[in-house]
């Protein structure tokens, strides 16, 4: 009788244990997805020539109105995708390369110019009289600018221009940076 009672109590204990499963009934896994985007810049403008028929006025001096042009008028889309992108400008004055030697008093074969505009939301400027031939950097960051403006203006001078062909250059360089 005692043995039967022990066996019965053991069975009850076993049943009680089975009725409390220990499994977790919810499981999840998290997968990380990664990608990269490299820093890029691009401009539709690779080379452009702005032709100005006559940069002198009727008095033989600089025709400021004729030189008031958008130097970037042929440009399309300019953009950079990196926060630390920069634009570098480097320009040279209008020079009559066909004239050698020293200009007579009251004449010149050099016309300095200034440029002002905006690249994205960054104001840009360049002045050949002060920084001609040297790089000027502007932090342009992330921007996308269609047909940006770069307005030229000639420096005023009382000198008359020596006849000939004048040319100037403006180099724009976009450098990507994250």
């Amino acid at each position: 009788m005692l043995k039967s009672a022990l066996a019965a109590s053991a069975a009850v204990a076993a049943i009680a244990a089975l009725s409390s499963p220990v499994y977790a009934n919810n499981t999840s896994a998290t997968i990380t997805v990664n990608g990269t985007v490299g820093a890029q810049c691009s401009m539709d403008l690779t080379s452009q020539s702005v032709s100005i028929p006559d940069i002198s006025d009727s008095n033989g001096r600089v025709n400021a109105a004729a030189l008031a042009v958008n130097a970037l008028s042929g440009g399309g889309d300019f953009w950079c995708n990196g926060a630390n992108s920069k634009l570098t400008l480097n320009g040279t004055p209008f020079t009559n390369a066909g004239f050698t030697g020293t200009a007579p008093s009251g004449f010149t074969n050099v016309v300095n110019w200034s440029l002002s505009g905006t690249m994205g939301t960054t104001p840009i400027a360049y002045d050949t009289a002060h920084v001609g031939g040297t790089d000027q950097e502007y932090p342009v960051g992330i921007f996308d600018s269609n047909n940006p403006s770069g307005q030229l203006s000639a420096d005023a001078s009382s000198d008359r221009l020596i006849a000939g062909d004048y040319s100037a250059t403006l180099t724009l360089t976009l450098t990507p940076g994250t």
Partner: protein
Amino acid sequence: MERKLLTLAVVCSVLAGLCAVPCAASDSATLTVKGTVGSACHLGDLSSSQIDVGQLSNNTDGTLAAISGTPGTTITGSWCNTGSKITVVASPLVALGFAGAPPSGFTKAVNYTASASGWGSAAVSDTTLGDSSGAESTSHSGSQTLNDPEANAITVNLAAFSTPSSGDRLVADGDYEGTITVTLATNAAGSP
């Protein structure tokens, strides 16, 4: 004499009656043994906990590249001993190093569709809904319920990459990151 015979007959009858009942009496009892199996699901091991999509933008115009052949990952050894529900929740790839909102025409988020196949006959998918800043204004998930127990491998793949607005350029960042969470749960409406 007749009385003696009668007494003997009674004694014999009593003895005969006693002999019909065993001297050591037997007894029996039936003990019922019961057990239970709890409802459970187990999600197995990931072949890889990371999926690297690589370069997201193209080198021509900075917009989203045509992404294909993205490696998937497999979860092996998963099982549920009852009806189950599988759920997939994905979040967009977002440039972690870029603070704030990107300028107009740019995005810091790439959306995609994550699908989990192998658990049941149909794949379960979820498409992210990030805006250009990577925020999602609507919660979303993909799920499927199975009525029967299941034991199978689950394969997770990515597809249908897109930007919040068509033609968006991607901001430069070395670490775009999103997550995919796969959950298995018992389904009370399924088989016991």
